[in-house]
C-alpha cells in the first residue's frame, strides 16, 4: 500500500492512496468524537442521519435524488468514537459527489428533526423485533450501564422525547473541526490534481476545536444476570461478557488471537466445534472482542433451544476455563495467527474497505498503517500471553443477558 499525506489550508489532514485502474473511488470523512461525547443517547446517531436530510440549498428529496441519479453509495456511520461520511462512486462522478458531501458537512440544517426522530424510533422498534438484537441491547446496556458505550436502541427510545434539532445541531457543530477530522481517498486519482479540488470544497471548515470533553471510562458492572421475557420465542438468546482493554492497550493483540481461537475464527474455532458440531446446541455461536478508546468488551453469543440455556452456559464456562486451565497447543495459536493474517488480506480487497480502515485508524490516532502494525503484534504473541490474558480478563464471573420465554427462563432458574 502507498499513501500520500498532506493537509488543506485549514489543517484538515488529507490522505490519498492511489488504486490505478479501479472503476470506483472511495472517500471517507471521519470526525473524532462519536456517541462517546454525547450527553444523551441518540444525539450522535440523529446528527449523522440528519446530515442527509437537508442543507441550506438542498432539500432531503434533492439529496436523495442526487445520490440515486449519480449511483453514489453514501452512508453515514455513527460510531462510539467517531462520526463518518463515506461515499463510493464511479470515477466520473467524483466532483459532483464531493460537492454534495461538502454541502452536507457544512450546511446541514437539521430541520427535519421531528420526522427523522420518529423514523429512528420505528427503526429501533423493528430492530428489536429480532430476538438476537433484543438480547444484544439488554446485554450492552447492562454491561456499560451509565456510560455512552451502553447507549443502546432501548435507551435512545427513552431519550428521544428530550431531544430536539437545536441540541443535535449544537453537538454536531462542536464536533466539526478541520483538525479533528480527516479526508481519505482511495481510487484511481492523482493527489496533485485532487488536493485543489478538496481545498475548494473543504478548506473553509473551521479549525477551532470546541469539542465536548470525553468523559471517564466505564465503571465495570458487577457480574450479574439480566433477563427479559419474550411472549413467543423458539430460541433463547444468550450473551455473556467481560471487560477488556481498549484499542491502545498492548493486550489487544493476545486478546484478538484468543478471540479468533475461541469463537471468531470461522468453522474451526473452539465454540463452533464444541457447542455446534459436537453438541448440536446452535446454528450461531461465536465470540467477539470490541475495543474502544478506553475500554473493551469480550463477549460470547449463542442462540439455542429454550431447554438448552443451562447447557449452553455450562458449555461457555467449560470453554473459557479451558483457555487458562489447559495448555493451548502452539499449533492452535499458529492457526489463529494465520487466520488473522489472511483476514487482513481479505478485508482490504476493495477501495472502500481500505479507505474505511485508513480513515478510522487515522482518526483514532492509531496511524494509517495500524492494521499492518497490528499484524506484527499478532505475530509476536506467545501461548503464555494467551493464558495470561485469559486469566486476567475472563476468569471472573461474566455479565450475562438472556432473552427467552418466561417458561424457559424459569426452567433455567433465571426467572
Amino acid at each position, binding site marked *: 500500500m502507498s499513501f500520500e499525506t498532506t493537509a488543506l489550508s485549514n489543517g484538515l489532514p488529507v490522505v490519498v492512496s492511489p488504486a490505478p*485502474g*479501479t*472503476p*470506483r473511488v472511495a472517500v471517507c470523512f471521519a470526525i473524532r468524537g462519536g456517541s462517546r461525547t454525547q450527553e444523551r443517547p441518540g444525539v450522535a446517531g440523529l446528527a449523522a442521519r440528519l446530515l*442527509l436530510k437537508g442543507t441550506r440549498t438542498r432539500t*432531503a*428529496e434533492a*439529496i*436523495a*435524488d442526487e*445520490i*440515486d*441519479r*449519480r*449511483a453514489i*453509495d453514501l452512508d453515514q456511520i455513527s460510531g462510539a468514537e467517531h462520526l463518518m461520511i463515506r461515499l463510493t462512486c*464511479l470515477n466520473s462522478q467524483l466532483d459532483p459527489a464531493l460537492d454534495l458531501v461538502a454541502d452536507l458537512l457544512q450546511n446541514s440544517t437539521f430541520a427535519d428533526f421531528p*420526522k427523522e426522530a*420518529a*423514523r429512528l424510533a*420505528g427503526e429501533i*422498534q*423493528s430492530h*428489536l*423485533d*429480532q*430476538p438476537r438484537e433484543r438480547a444484544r441491547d439488554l446485554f450492552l446496556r447492562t454491561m456499560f450501564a451509565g456510560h455512552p458505550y451502553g447507549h443502546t436502541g432501548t435507551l435512545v427510545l427513552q431519550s428521544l422525547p428530550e431531544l430536539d434539532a437545536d441540541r443535535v445541531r449544537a453537538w454536531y457543530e462542536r464536533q466539526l473541526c478541520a483538525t479533528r477530522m480527516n479526508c481519505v481517498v482511495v481510487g484511481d486519482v492523482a493527489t496533485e490534481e485532487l488536493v485543489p479540488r478538496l481545498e475548494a470544497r473543504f478548506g473553509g471548515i473551521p479549525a477551532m476545536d470546541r469539542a465536548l470533553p470525553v468523559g471517564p471510562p466505564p465503571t465495570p458492572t458487577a457480574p450479574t444476570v439480566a433477563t427479559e421475557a*419474550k*411472549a*413467543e*420465542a*423458539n*430460541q433463547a438468546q444468550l450473551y455473556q461478557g467481560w471487560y477488556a482493554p481498549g484499542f491502545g492497550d498492548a493486550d489487544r493483540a493476545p486478546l484478538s488471537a484468543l478471540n479468533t481461537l475461541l469463537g471468531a475464527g*470461522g*468453522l*474451526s474455532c473452539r465454540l463452533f466445534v464444541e457447542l*455446534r*458440531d*459436537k453438541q*448440536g*446446541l*446452535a*446454528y*450461531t455461536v461465536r465470540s467477539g472482542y470490541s475495543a474502544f478508546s478506553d475500554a473493551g468488551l469480550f463477549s460470547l453469543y449463542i442462540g439455542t*433451544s429454550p*431447554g438448552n440455556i443451562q447447557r449452553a452456559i455450562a458449555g461457555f464456562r467449560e470453554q473459557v476455563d479451558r483457555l487458562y486451565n489447559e495448555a493451548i497447543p502452539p499449533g492452535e495459536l*499458529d*492457526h489463529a495467527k*494465520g*487466520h*488473522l*493474517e*489472511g483476514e*487482513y*488480506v*481479505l478485508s482490504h*480487497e*476493495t*477501495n*472502500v474497505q481500505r479507505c474505511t480502515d485508513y480513515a478510522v485508524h487515522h482518526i483514532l490516532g492509531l496511524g494509517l498503517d495500524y492494521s499492518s502494525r497490528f499484524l506484527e503484534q499478532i505475530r509476536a504473541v506467545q501461548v503464555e500471553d494467551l493464558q495470561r490474558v485469559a486469566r486476567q480478563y475472563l476468569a471472573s464471573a461474566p455479565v450475562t443477558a438472556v432473552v427467552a420465554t418466561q417458561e424457559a427462563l424459569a426452567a433455567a432458574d433465571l426467572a
Partner: protein
Amino acid sequence: MKEGTQQISLPYLTAPATIARLDNGHTVVVIPKPGEVVHLHTVVRAGSILEDDHTTGISHFLEHLMFKGTPAHPAGEFDRVLEGMGARINASTSKDWTQYYVTIPKGQDGAFYRLALELHADMLLNPLLPEEEIGPPFDPSGPPVGQKRERHVVIEEIKMGKDNPWRRCLEAINRLMYHHHPYKREVIGTEQVIASVTRETLMGYHRKWYAPDNMATIIAGDLDPQMALADVARHFTFGPNRAGELPTFPAEPEQTEARREALTGDVQTGYVLAGFRGVPAMRLDEVIALDAAMVVLGEGKSSRLYQRLVEQHPDTPFFDVGAAQWEYREEGMLIAYGVCRPDAVQTSADLLLEQVSRLVAEPPTDAEFEKARTRLEARFAAEAEWAMGLALRVADSVVRGGDLSAYTEYLPTLQRLTPAEVAAAVRRYLQPNRLALVTMAPGGAQ
C-alpha cells in the same frame, strides 16, 4: 480435456474471462481479477425445486453435511487447514442451486489457492456424510435428545427463522403464491424431515445431482487461466454418473384473484409485504425491465415508495419501505414492503398497494427511467471490485442458462431498454389479481 473454450469480456475487467465446458460436462470459468484474493466457487444446480414433501430441506441439509469429511480428509480438516490460511468458507442453498465457496489469499506462488482448490474439489466429490455427524433420527415432538449432532444444528436454524418476522412474512408470501410448483416448499425444510431423513437418501441425492454436467466451478483471481483450467480438471475427478436434463415441474396456474394472509407475532412494529410472481430468469429482457421498475418503485431514498410514503406523506405510518426483484430459474418474485406503526397495518397495506397500482397507471418517467438505468449499470462496477462479487454473478448466469450470456448481455440489453418496455412489464406482472399480500401485527401466538 476440454472443448469449446471461449474468451469472454466482462464489464469493468481489462482481461477476458475464460469459460470451458469439459468433456464430462463440467463448466469451468476463470475470471482474471487483479489482487491477492482468490475466490473458488462451485455451484450445483440442485436446490429445493428437486425436493418433495418427504425430502423437503435435504438440499440444504446436505450442504451442511458436505463439510463433514471425506476418505482423504476427516471432518473438520477442511475448515481447520483453510481457515488457518485466513480463508472465509461458506455455502448457501436456494430454490434452484447450492453453492460452496472459499475466499482465500492466493499465498506465495499460489500455494494457498492450490491447496484450497484440492480440498474444495475433494469435499464436493467425495463426502462421507458420516452417521455419527448426522446424528440418530429422533422425534422432534418427543422428549429432549441427549446426543445432538448436525440434525439439531439445522433444526436450530429453522427455529431461528421462526423467530424472525421477515422470515415468517416471506414464508407466508411463498405459501400464497405457490400451491403446485415445488417452489411452494421452503428451502430450509421441516423439523420432521430433518429429524428423520436417512443417510442413504442424502447419499442418493448427492450421487444423482452432484454430477459434472450439473455443476460449474468458478475461479476469480490473479491466475493464469489455462493453468487454472487444468487445475480444476485435475482435481475434479468425477465418476461416470451424469445428471442429464433437469425434470420438468408441475406448472403453477396463473393466479386469478388476490390472496391475503394476516399474521400476528411477538413484534412491536407492523410489517406489510406485497408480492407478485415474476418472470423466468432466462427472459432477460423482461427481467431487466422489472429490475428497472423495482428501482423506480422502491430502491433508494429517491424512490417513489420512500418519497411518497415516508418523506412526503403528512402522517406517515411507515418507518421504512423498499422493493426488489428476486430471480429464480423458473419464475422470479417481485416484492414491495414496508415497516410501519403497529396500529396502522391495514392503512399501510392500502398505501403500499396504491403505489404499486400507480406504477401501472403512471409508468416511470424518463427521468426515473434514466436514474434506474444508471443505478443498474453501477451495480456491475461494484461487483467487479471483489472476487466473490464477480463469481456470484457468473454462477447466477451459468445456473440460468449454462453460459455467461445472462451476465454479458445484461448491459447491452439495458442500453436498448425503453420506458415503454418497462411499462409493459409492469402492466403484465403487477396486476391486482396476481397480488399476494402478507401483513404482520402484534398479537398472540398462531
